[in-house]
């Protein structure tokens, strides 16, 4: 990682403010100079490329269309180490899996800006005849080569790159004709880094968001998206929604107007539907409060993000049920997994199969909604109380600036993330599944959740503890990490 360059970016005082055009031009020049392919990024050419794309290959458009016709789009994940393998994968996902949105996941070296290591991985992969990288090294290939991926498919493409350092990858990705980009400063920094400060992570995503806004000024609307799944490990809806609000406000300040929100599934029919509803509602409320009245915020539901069972039959159940949850919950899209999830990166075939299972599940659950169900309303109210109590405290700490609010509240533990590897959050909050299958909070750490909400959480968890004859405490959280991955023989003997 090129620390020298990174420290240059941090010159301007840290705030939520839009990066001024002049500063941004300088930042871009410096950024693009970090690896040879950066020189191939040209916004004018990229804008022309985007404008030449048919509507159905533009993700921003596809989302709005789908919402109008009440469809839930499907999107897998997937990245392999070479262009050839990646084209093969994307074609399979598009043609066999019927993916509505086709992804390119980058490899971990790329995510950490270790492009030299990634280069090695490409070569090793070519030699080994199989992918030695866990994703596609987009920066190494550069925008001209990478554009071939978009040419190979008949759907919109999205870049998935779980990192706090997206600046060069984003330049390459958008320039290549990808019309969507997943990632955000708060969410990814807490889930993908150990030492990186939230300030650095947020600055890097301010760059990316500012880049999307730059395309907008050229008449190209790009999709940006927040990965609310965080550490993927039993994230209660309120935690995910709080990070969605923070990241959405940060993005909106940079000029983003098409901002997706992701939520990992809790696997509870009612809780997931309520989470999807309240994510949409609450993010909009906070955006409006800050004067942003024109940000479109579709919600994506994610197949179970925690540990998966090894039995393929059980895994299939998670996939299909996930499709049901997304459809019933009214998600705008679902991000899918495969039966290979517990083992390793899926083959294209397994990945396409996961898509088809999900798609059929969506078809079967069409028209089913829980709106009129009292439990749904109760859960919506509960989520609102949780989010508002914490969110208002977070904002208060920023003296009107969301960026500062984020740093300060994380430091104080007011904003906290379960199971985070990052030193700059306390990671004291502990979630666990309760007696009725809701994901609840067994220990809020320093998070100022409304007292009456926490009482509901505790009651359900105490009932579970009692039923299982274990003490009320962290053990509930640990066994909840394993729960869904347990063999059926143990889950339901």
């Amino acid at each position: 990682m090129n620390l020298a360059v990174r420290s240059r970016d941090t010159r301007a005082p840290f705030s939520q403010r839009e990066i001024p055009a002049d500063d941004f031009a300088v930042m871009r020049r410096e950024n693009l100079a970090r690896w040879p392919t950066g020189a191939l990024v040209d916004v004018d050419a990229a804008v022309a490329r985007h404008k030449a794309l048919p509507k159905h290959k533009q993700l921003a458009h596809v989302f709005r269309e789908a919402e109008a016709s009440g469809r839930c789009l499907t999107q897998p994940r997937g990245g392999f180490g070479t262009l050839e393998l990646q084209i093969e994968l994307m074609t399979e996902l598009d043609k066999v899996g019927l993916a509505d949105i086709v992804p390119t996941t980058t490899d971990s070296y790329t995510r950490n800006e270790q492009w030299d290591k990634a280069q090695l991985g490409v070569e090793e992969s070519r030699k080994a005849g199989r992918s030695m990288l866990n994703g596609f090294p987009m920066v190494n290939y550069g925008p001209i080569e990478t554009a071939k991926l978009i040419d190979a498919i008949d759907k919109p493409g999205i870049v998935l790159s779980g990192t706090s350092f997206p600046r060069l990858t984003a330049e390459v990705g958008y320039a290549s004709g990808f019309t969507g980009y997943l990632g955000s400063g708060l969410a990814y920094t807490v889930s993908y880094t150990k030492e990186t400060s939230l300030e650095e992570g947020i600055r890097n995503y301010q760059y990316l968001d500012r880049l999307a806004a730059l395309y907008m000024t050229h008449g190209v609307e790009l999709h940006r998206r927040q990965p609310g799944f965080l550490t993927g490990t039993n994230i209660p809806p309120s935690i995910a929604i709080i990070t969605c609000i923070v990241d959405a406000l940060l993005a909106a300040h940079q000029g983003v107007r098409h901002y997706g929100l992701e939520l990992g599934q809790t696997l509870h029919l009612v809780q997931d539907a309520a989470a999807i509803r309240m994510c949409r509602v609450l993010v909009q409320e906070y955006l409006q409060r800050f004067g942003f009245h024109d940000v479109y915020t579709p919600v994506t539901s994610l197949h179970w993000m925690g540990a998966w069972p090894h039995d393929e039959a059980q895994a299939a159940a998670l996939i299909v049920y996930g499709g049901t949850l997304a459809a019933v919950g009214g998600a705008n899209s679902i991000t899918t997994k495969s039966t290979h999830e517990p083992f390793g990166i899926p083959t294209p075939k397994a990945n396409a199969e996961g898509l088809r299972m999900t798609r059929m599940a969506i078809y079967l659950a069409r028209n089913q909604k829980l709106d009129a169900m009292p439990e749904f309303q109760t859960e919506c109210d509960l989520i609102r109380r949780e989010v508002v109590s914490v969110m208002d405290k977070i904002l208060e700490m920023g003296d009107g600036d969301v960026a500062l609010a984020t740093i300060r509240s994380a430091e104080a533990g007011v904003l906290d993330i379960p199971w985070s590897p990052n030193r700059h959050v306390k990671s004291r909050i502990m979630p666990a599944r309760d007696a009725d299958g809701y994901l609840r909070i067994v220990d809020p750490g320093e998070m100022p959740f409304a007292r009456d909400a926490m009482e509901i959480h505790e009651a359900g968890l105490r009932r579970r503890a009692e039923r299982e004859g274990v003490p009320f405490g962290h053990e509930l959280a640990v066994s909840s990490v394993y729960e869904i991955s347990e063999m059926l023989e143990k889950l339901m003997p």
Partner: protein
Amino acid sequence: MVDNAALPRATGAAINKTLITGVIGSDTHIVGNRILSIALENAGFKVIALGALTPAADFIKAAIETAADAILVSSLYGLGELDCRGFREQCIEAGLDDILLYVGGNLVVGKRSWEETERTFLGMGFNRAFPPGTRTDAVIDALNCDFATRSALVPST
């Protein structure tokens, strides 16, 4: 799982052994490693937990500093094979010729047969490799067993 969290489960030769744990390379999968570290500690081991995103060199440095008896390397994200290359050689260079080396997690990219994967990592000088989904009890049992064997080979004076 931490069912019997309070009872030290390390037996005989394993008591008071020092273990280094961590997730190697650019890998951020901390959950299993953290649960494993807690379980090992609850079982009576002394655990130095280096956490996620730990370079190979840091494991070895920590092992030297604490005169550790074993290093437990986690790798989940699929680059384990690349990250762990030469790990034993680096240990030997650092004078840790016989240190017990375990590796576990999701060790390769994709779904390969476990036999093949295990062979690869044993070939790299790890004493044991553990398949995806390994529970903490199995790790504790293996440590107990290996420390017992080792102390039998080197009779205590």
